[in-house]
């Protein structure tokens, strides 16, 4: 374990410029994201004397998350509380400019309709557009606006679509060959000499997804580790087991449109249990936030 840790500690960390925005859902399913990394120092090669041979081989995995695009629906209590607060705010609030103008116009109309109306009293120039007409035109424009549907049941069912369940955050899962069997797990790759663990995780992501996918890694430090021993038959002097380090990444607003390979799934945290092995799930569940 000596080599990679020392390398990570000695390198100066890259500076990140991240810009995240959460605006109304347009055509894209992801938040707008742009990242510029300012400084990345080149890795210092470790001498052969530094490395102690360890029976654990290293891998890095990426926990790619797609953040929620729309707000989650409120529970019944939350809805009632929200309504109550809105009512309270309405009652405490003062009249806005628009409402004051409406009242003035109504008063002016009633004065004009009165019997003892004197046209000289009417000071100020007549507005071409009455405030009520303005309000009516606004109402009309609102009716013409059709928002996109929030929940689309058919897309929600499709586990491979990145646009499912817009109100929850999804995690990417890939089916990879581990040893003799194919397992569902977070995309991982073996660590190679001369690269950081984060670069390994980036390589893992690129190997599993299509080319157009852009992801922002949240930091150079891993967020979790999972170690497992190889089955007794496969154990040798030099390899007892594997340690997998997890890195968190957020899906940027790239077009994930180019068809992903069939062995990818986008799952909510609650659905992960059906696909992951129990020990792995326990470990991974600790750093995936269910917010």
């Amino acid at each position, binding site marked *: 374990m000596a080599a990679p840790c020392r390398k990570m500690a000695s390198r100066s960390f890259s*500076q990140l410029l991240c810009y995240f925005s*959460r605006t109304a859902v347009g055509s894209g399913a992801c938040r707008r994201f742009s990242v510029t990394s300012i400084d990345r120092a080149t890795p210092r090669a470790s001498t052969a004397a530094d490395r102690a041979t360890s029976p654990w081989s290293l891998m890095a995995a990426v926990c790619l998350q797609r953040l929620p695009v729309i707000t989650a629906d409120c529970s019944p209590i939350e809805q009632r509380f929200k309504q109550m607060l809105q009512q309270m705010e309405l009652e405490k609030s003062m009249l806005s400019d628009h409402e004051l103008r409406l009242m003035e116009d109504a008063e002016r109309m009633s004065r004009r309709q009165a019997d003892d109306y004197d046209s000289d009293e009417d000071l100020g120039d007549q507005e071409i557009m009455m405030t009520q007409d303005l309000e009516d035109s606004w109402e009309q424009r609102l009716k013409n606006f059709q928002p996109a549907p929030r929940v689309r049941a058919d897309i929600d069912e499709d586990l491979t679509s990145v646009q499912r369940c817009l109100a929850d955050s999804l995690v990417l899962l890939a089916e990879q060959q581990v040893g003799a069997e194919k397992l569902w797990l977070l995309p991982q790759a073996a660590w190679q000499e001369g690269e950081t663990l984060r670069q390994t995780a980036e390589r893992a992501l690129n190997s599993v997804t299509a080319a157009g996918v852009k992801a922002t890694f949240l930091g150079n430090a891993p967020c979790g580790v999972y170690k497992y021993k190889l089955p007794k038959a496969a154990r040798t002097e030099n390899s007892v087991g594997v340690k997998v380090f997890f890195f968190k990444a957020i899906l940027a607003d790239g077009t994930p449109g180019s068809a992903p390979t069939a062995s990818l799934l986008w799952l909510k945290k609650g659905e992960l249990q059906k696909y992951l092995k129990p020990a792995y799930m326990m470990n991974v569940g600790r750093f995936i*936030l269910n*917010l």
Partner: protein
Amino acid sequence: MNHIFRKLQVTFPQQASILNQSLCRATPSIQHPVWCTAAINERQYRDMPTHGIGRWRHLLLKQAPKKKKDRNQQKELVSATDTAYGTLNVTVSGYDMTVVEHYSQYIHNFCNRLNIKVAESYALPTKSTEVLLMQEQGNKTYVDAVLKTHRRVVQLSSLNASLCPVFMDVILKNQPEGVQLSVQEHTEADYQTRFKARPELEGLVAQINH
């Protein structure tokens, strides 16, 4: 009942003291209650053994007098090390002021909870954007709406690299709608943009230089 007890208390020092002066001074107190003895300016009990019993300010260490100019000085920029980021600016911006302010307060409280040192928390000036729409009949544009962009900045003095992914993940997952989040390094130029331009001063400086 009370004044009887007070008389008893007063007579003890009377018996213990030897000086006649104290006797003379003590005697008026027997007739009158202790709390309305004499004028406030007159220090009556300077020779009493309990004189100055409540004094505590002389026990404190001498504090340097506070300079009033300290408030607006710029805090030092922390530079990045191998294991921590330097001074970072977390900027929250949006059109709805209550949401923007509440989100920046949430970030500040979250930093406090994770023991991340918050250097400063300030607001940048609001920018107003006028939305002009073309009229349906004719070429004139009319003012449709005025949108105000509010910005709040939470400045972190240093962020541990191992804590960074956790911090960013939680903040992103709790980001409200209509709010933009931006995390950048703090530079000298950022600090200077907070000040208002002073045209007269710049004019005078230009005159001096020419």
